[in-house]
């Protein structure tokens, strides 16, 4: 029971802090689940993150697997509610309120000011996954190749990550 309460509190906190989306809270999520609560190892965190990459829909649905891994189906439900419900309520309220802020000059300031912070956090999220997954020349080559392909043209990201996984597996055979 204590673990379910902790899971709920951690993931609802991450939910309201997710300025810049899911990638932005990855370092904090890793820190809390691996270092603060010792629920997962770095490798488990990385593997669960990878599962989210190959599922359709938002990649951060991988938090459901974290909940399941730690506390079974109840853990999955608690983490799902904790991670998604607070944001949904905030967004619904602000959506109805936003239109009344049309003439409020600070609205633009908030948007402009939060944008670079959000991008800084996304950079940190990318760095956190890089620290966990760039372990040799082959993994580095896969990351660089995917980056170059996406700069060059739009390719379905789901296909790219699957090919990345297959190529890395082949290099280890």
């Amino acid at each position: 029971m204590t673990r379910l309460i902790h899971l709920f509190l951690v993931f609802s906190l991450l939910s309201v802090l997710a300025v810049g989306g899911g990638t932005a809270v990855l370092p904090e999520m890793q820190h809390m689940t691996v270092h603060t609560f010792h629920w997962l190892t770095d490798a488990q965190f990385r593997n669960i993150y990878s599962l989210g990459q190959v599922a359709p829909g938002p990649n951060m649905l991988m938090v459901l697997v974290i909940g399941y891994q730690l506390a079974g189906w109840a853990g999955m439900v608690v983490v799902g509610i904790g991670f998604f419900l607070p944001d949904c309520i905030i967004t619904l309220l602000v959506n109805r309120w936003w239109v009344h802020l049309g003439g409020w000059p600070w609205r633009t300031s908030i948007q402009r000011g939060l944008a670079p912070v959000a991008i800084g956090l996304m950079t940190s999220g990318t760095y956190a996954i890089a620290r966990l997954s760039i372990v040799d020349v082959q993994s580095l080559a896969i990351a660089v190749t995917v980056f170059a392909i996406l700069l060059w043209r739009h390719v379905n990201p789901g296909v790219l990550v699957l090919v990345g996984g297959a190529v890395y597996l082949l290099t280890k055979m």
Partner: protein
Amino acid sequence: MSFGGGAVAYLREYLVREEGWLDDEGFLGAMEISETLPGLNAVNMAIIMGDNLRGIAGAVVSVIGMLLPGSIVVMILGILWQSNHSNPDVKYFLLGIAAAAVGLLSAVTLQIGRRQFRQLPDIAIIFVTFFAVSFLKLPLVVVLLTLGPISVWLYRPHVSEPRAEDEHLPFHRGERHHWFRH
């Protein structure tokens, strides 16, 4: 317009191009709110579009539609992974996926921040935020409560700055909210 898993790009494709439920300006207005608020972009978009088209019931249905298929798939994968996690092939495959995801996340971050990465004050804020989280290891709540207000203050109203043109504002589209059904 490829964000994360590309869900937002698909939303635009269906809602604007195929169904014609809203126009591009309406879509950008929703993007503007989604990106400023905490939470996953795709989920926030689903809430806003559902709410604008059909009220709270619409928002609930949209979110469920956005999350349910992926939830089922990710849980199937999670259960399969749990029973095979010691298999080295599975380990290498997942590591390769994470490495590929680093390339993907880098491209997405660069694309979303394409305007900010070109402006000096924004580059400074990006760097300080990155340094505070990744190297100083400051708690996210501390970073947001200090750098957030500082950054908003730098862009406070009535500051005359030479770059303050609409085309430099990634999330700002002026007062184009008349499409909202309120």
